[in-house]
């Protein structure tokens, strides 16, 4: 940790930067780049999925019918709402309204946790229905195309698992932010951190929309 300049009104400037604007710009730009790499990480799986969705159109559409559209939609709604609360939190921190900002951060945290809980319930449900073809678990598919359905569920677990992992990371970040906001030591710094974390959260939201569309909505 660099030590020299004491915290000022505008927050601490790290050694390597000339001023706070340069630091903020660099941080934001870095986050955007990171999100670009994340997009490509998911992009590989998305591309694979789309290829097989085209090859095995009917089978995949049928397999998608075995997912719980209602729960999926509910989850989408929860996550989009959390995007809103996160955006509000960002504004409130900027306006130095500490308690309201804290409330919004906690709301985001709660919505995200609810999302994961519902996701876990869905997975459990699929496990009970023997639709979880991973770890050598039995796969018993009632439809016409069990082989292709197995491939579909492979993708389903790969994509939702990867997304849930990103959600989990996001929740940890939100937890840290909530603690920092509660302490309120260095408001300008908190504002920058909330802005950057907000970008990440929005990205996870958008990813889910794509995942939801590909897996749940493209059905018969």
């Amino acid at each position, binding site marked *: 940790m660099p030590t020299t300049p004491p915290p000022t009104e505008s927050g601490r400037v790290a050694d390597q930067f000339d001023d706070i604007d340069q630091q903020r710009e660099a941080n934001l730009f870095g986050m955007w780049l990171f999100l670009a790499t994340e997009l490509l990480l998911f992009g*590989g*799986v998305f591309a694979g999925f789309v290829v*097989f969705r085209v090859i095995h159109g009917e089978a995949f559409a049928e397999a998608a019918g075995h997912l719980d559209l209602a729960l999926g939609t509910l989850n989408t709604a929860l996550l989009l709402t959390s995007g809103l609360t996160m955006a509000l939190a960002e504004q409130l921190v900027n306006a130095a309204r500490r308690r309201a900002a804290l409330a919004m951060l906690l709301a985001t945290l709660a919505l995200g946790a609810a999302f994961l809980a519902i996701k876990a319930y869905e997975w459990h449900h699929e496990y009970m229905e023997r639709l979880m073809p991973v770890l050598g678990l039995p796969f018993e598919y009632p439809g016409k195309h069990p082989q292709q359905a197995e*491939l579909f569920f*492979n993708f389903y677990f790969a994509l939702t698992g990867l997304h849930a992992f990103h959600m989990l990371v996001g929740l940890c970040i939100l937890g840290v932010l909530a603690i920092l906001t509660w302490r309120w030591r260095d408001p300008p710094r908190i504002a920058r951190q909330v802005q950057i974390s907000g970008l990440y959260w929005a990205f996870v939201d958008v990813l889910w929309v794509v995942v939801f569309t590909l897996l749940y909505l493209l059905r018969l």
Partner: protein
Amino acid sequence: MSVSTDPRWPSEHYLKEDWGLRGWLLTTDHKRIAWLYLVSITAFFFLGGLAALLIRLELITPPGDLVSADTYNRLFSLHGIVMVWFFLIPSIPATLGNFLLPMMLGARDLAFPRLNLLSWYVYTLGGLFTLAAVIGGGVDTGWTFYTPYSTLFSNSAVIAAVMGVFIVGFSSILTGLNFIVTTHKMRAPGLTWFRLPLFVWANYATSLIMVLATPVLSCVLMLISVERLFGIGIFDPALGGDPLLFQHLFWFYSHPAVYIMILPGMGVVSEIIACFSRKPVFGYQGMVISIMSIAVFGFVVWGHHMFVAGQSLYAGLMFSFFTFLVALPSAIKAFNWTATLYKARIIFSAPMIYALSFVGLFTIGGLTGIILASIAIDVHVHDTYFVTAHFHYIMVGGMVTSYLGGLHFWWPKLTGRMYSELWSKVAALALFIGFNLTFFPQFLLGYQGMPRRYHEYPADFELLNVMSTLGAGVLAIGYLLPLLYLSWSLRFGAVAGGNPWRATGLEWTVDSPPLKHNFPRTPRVTEPAYAYDPTAD
């Protein structure tokens, strides 16, 4: 002259204090992190080199008599995995790039110093996984991990090796991200884009590829692991998957990865040739455009690895066409380096010998790439020693030569010391001669039809294989010598002073070794890069 009495030895510098473990393992100084990388990649280089030596010794006779077939397969897989992911990809960016990029930009450090340190730890973790794979019996899939062999058939530590490569990928993503942000946001006043040294441009383009292509590799390696662990069938034809999908995704990363390996070398060579020609690089703008177009076009040629794998005829023709196009910027670069020598004042120092070797070897490597891009020829020589020779001309003849050249060029800056002039020239020449002796015979072997990754071979290929193995011996001298005299110079080398080569560039304006934060005050740039004048002196 001893250090204490030489006025050119700075009283303050980044190596002076903090020699405890904490001072190194928890440092956020980009220059010290460069040293961490330098030590690690050197260790991996010699590990990979040892495997190569055993491979060459096995191939000195036609029957498989030195090691068993399974051992041989593990050796060439180890050689490929270690050399590609743990040496070539990090080599110049993570060592010289890490050290020099902030200095060339006039910055005090990279934008994210702790991320930089983290990337070294990630690299080390990946390396440990790979070593675990070696200790756990080795991996025998080749560095390409082709399915379904890697997922269904191989009885070796595929998962550990794949995890190692997966993890090390994040290290290059983090480095790339750091470089891009630093180049965009932290240039010194007056340092416009078109005043940047070509080394910075090359590292910038490399970083773009690292950031955009590596995630796809991570994704495909992840899929391999889950396929092997959980038996899902994305690449398994028996379950409705497609093994060619793996090859597409793999080469979508791994072809641009070739440019990750060569672009920084081009940057290094541009710096060296300009300095020892005492002349600005010929066609600076053309060089910048070439670097960037190589980075972009590099993404649309991956299919040339699959000309006989079964893609459609017209896809094959398109990829062949783009491959010819991507060769054009490389050809321009070779021409511009040569043209820089015209009416120059050429000093044949060790770095210059390396740089000129690079131009020659890279030309051969690039033009044999043209032969391979000629799609009908590729059907014959694909997966033969012709391909092996071609990519070694690019990766060893190109990247390793330029890496050593760069290391010799900036060694005085890194350490404040000079090395033996005579021995360094001997080493540079040994590299050039040994390299050609090792790999030129392999072009002939390849056109004769000797396939790659063969543990034993028909007897009439013996002569050329013996030549190749002897060359590898000379090449080994070219690698071991620098290790010796560079280590020696750390303690006994003469004091170099701030700018022993009388080179331009911000890194040469300060003492050697530099201060912890590089510059006493932020520099101001008023002229383009390479303000050399050949008519002076």
